[in-house]
């Protein structure tokens, strides 16, 4: 079995350059303090990306990545280690990287729900909050190993989601949107009123301790000291990487095709014998599990959660990330999450205007480029010539 006659193996170097470029951009953006310099760097990165897209660099990178998945994974691992080494004692920078990874993973879950299956979910922040509060309550009780606590965060989010699944399945379109919308808005109302869950003041949570690996200790490796936040970056990075790989496999499997059919035409899907409800439940569950899991990690990392962390506005920010990255494009989520989380932290003067700016940007994107910044590719079927 060989490829089409005209098909030559893709060159590898564009992939290496792309990964190195991504790692360098990430590190620079996290390290820069000067606001003017940050603006210039961003413009430079945008110009380079645009040029790469214009002159076929992106296509070459994609070809190399799809032919050498293990090379890609190895390169990403090396790049991640390099970034961690450079940022090893920058507490704030590492916290931001971990936060970006948490947002990115939640938004990959949202991509499965909204991008692949076409389910609306306007309560992502509420599911994240469910995970966070689960971790807080289990942490207060104590006695459970943290791995169980984190997984329970995801499972409780799935459970709460399963209470909503019946109305989501029975209703369609706007009627279905109402269900998650109401849940997303009610979540904070409920928490504010509930004294048991700390009310508006929120709850404190101890850090993570996985199998004796205490996340609040600094790491000492080969004479270098790494800030304890490195632990969280490693954990969130590992979860994000695993999620990316598994979501990629899901998308490339038959299930991915079925989810597409469910999104594009429910009636046709059921005509062809697909159990529409089953695939919706699957997508909804997967997304909510990711949200709950990341919420538990987030709560443990920041050590404190309050209802104001999980408002309807935050759910909209997460949907904005999905839109910004191109609806259904899981790679686009990563830079989108980076921009959305990092910029307001770095540019103090826009912190206050954050939501206003996101709203404006999303409106402009929806009017000008309805598929999102980097649109998802239409599936292509590569014909393998058999000789």
């Amino acid at each position, binding site marked *: 079995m060989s490829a089409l006659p005209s098909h030559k193996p893709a060159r590898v170097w564009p992939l290496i350059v792309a990964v190195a470029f991504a790692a360098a951009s990430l590190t620079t953006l996290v390290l820069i303090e000067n606001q003017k310099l940050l603006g210039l760097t961003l413009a430079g990165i945008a110009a380079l990306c645009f040029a790469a897209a214009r002159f076929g660099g992106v296509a070459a990178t994609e070809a190399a990545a799809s032919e050498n998945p293990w090379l890609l994974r190895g390169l990403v691992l090396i790049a991640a280690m390099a970034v961690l080494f450079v940022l090893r004692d920058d507490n704030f920078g590492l916290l931001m990287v971990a936060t970006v990874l948490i947002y990115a993973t939640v938004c990959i879950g949202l991509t499965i729900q909204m991008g692949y299956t076409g389910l609306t979910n306007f309560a992502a922040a509420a599911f994240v909050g469910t995970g966070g509060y689960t971790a807080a309550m289990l942490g207060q009780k104590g006695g459970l190993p943290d791995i169980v606590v984190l997984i329970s965060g995801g499972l409780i989010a799935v459970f709460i989601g399963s209470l909503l699944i019946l109305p989501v399945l029975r209703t369609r379109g706007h*009627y279905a*949107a*109402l269900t998650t919308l109401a849940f997303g808005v*009610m979540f904070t109302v409920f928490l504010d009123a509930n004294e048991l869950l700390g009310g508006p003041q929120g709850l404190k949570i101890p850090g993570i301790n996985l199998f004796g690996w205490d996340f609040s200790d600094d790491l000492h490796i080969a004479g270098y000291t790494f800030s304890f936040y490195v632990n969280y970056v490693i954990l969130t990075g590992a979860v994000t990487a695993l999620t990316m790989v598994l979501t990629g496999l899901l998308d490339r499997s038959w299930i991915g095709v079925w989810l597409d059919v469910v999104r594009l035409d429910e009636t046709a899907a059921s005509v062809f014998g697909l159990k529409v409800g089953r695939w919706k439940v699957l997508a909804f569950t997967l997304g909510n599990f990711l949200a709950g899991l990341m919420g538990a990690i987030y709560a443990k990392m920041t050590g404190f959660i309050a209802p104001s962390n999980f408002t309807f506005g935050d759910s909209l920010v997460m*949907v904005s990330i999905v839109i910004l990255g191109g609806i259904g494009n899981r790679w686009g989520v990563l830079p989108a999450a980076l921009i959305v989380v990092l910029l307001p932290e770095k540019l103090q003067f826009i912190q206050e*205007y954050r*939501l206003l700016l*996101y709203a404006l940007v999303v*409106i402009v994107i*929806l009017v000008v480029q309805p598929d999102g910044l980097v649109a998802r590719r239409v599936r292509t079927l590569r014909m393998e010539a058999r000789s």
Partner: protein
Amino acid sequence: MGTIGQHLLNGMMQGTIYGLVAMGFTIFFGVMNVIKFSHGDVLTVGAFAALVAVWATSALGMPVYVQFIAAFIAAMILTAVVGAGISHFLIMPLRNAPPLNMLLMTMMVGTLLREAIRLFFPNGTNPQRFPELLPAGGFSLGRSFFRFDALILIVAGVASIGVVYWIINRTKFGLAMRAVAEDVETARTMGINFARVIPLTFALGSLTAGFAGTIYGLYYSEINYGMGLLLAVIGFTAAIVGGLGNIWGAIIGGYLFAGLQTLVVAAMPSMSDYKNVFAFVLIIVLITWRPTGLLAERGSERV
């Protein structure tokens, strides 16, 4: 038993506000098949416009009844302009986009309005006191006390619902609106100016929100930048429960939601912080049972 009258009056007031908001949702949906989620924040814009009008007229030393009228007029004019603007510049260009995009876009427009009020209105982050323009007294009936202002506002609200209903069902413009709602292409071949009917419809729907916002300010004596979000969710819910596109359904939905809230407060006073949570749970159960609303939406799906 004395509080029953109080609860009844309060519930009627809330139901009137919810009904007005839900009516806007259902009008937009009927004509354009869109959910304009920014509707609640347009209401907030109206309430703040009313506040500014009251400030301005009282600074000029005008009598109270002029302030009262100025509040309503300012709110309705501004919301009509904002509503027509949103429809012309944002909803019309996107009308062939997927419904999700449209819903998201209007949510973002709502966020934009909300944040703009918070950031650019003087001291906008904090709640604003709305001046009391209506006579303060009231009368007792049995053991319950009825506030005059509440009665006046309920009458005004119900009357405005009636006026909108009359415009839709008895005027030529209403006929054009209903024709567009039925079938855009046919309406256009019959000589209806589509490009004019749509913004006017949005202006009409939005000015009811401005009216409701002013009533809200006068009744609760306090407005804040975020009040529109919850009202939008409730109004949307009420419109859904009644069946989207159905005016009577929306009004019934509004009073039903207020009734459920009031019932929770009356039956379990200790749980009154959760009144919205309970009401939403019941509503979600309701739409699970009747997925297209109590009064079912007409028509079938084209495949």
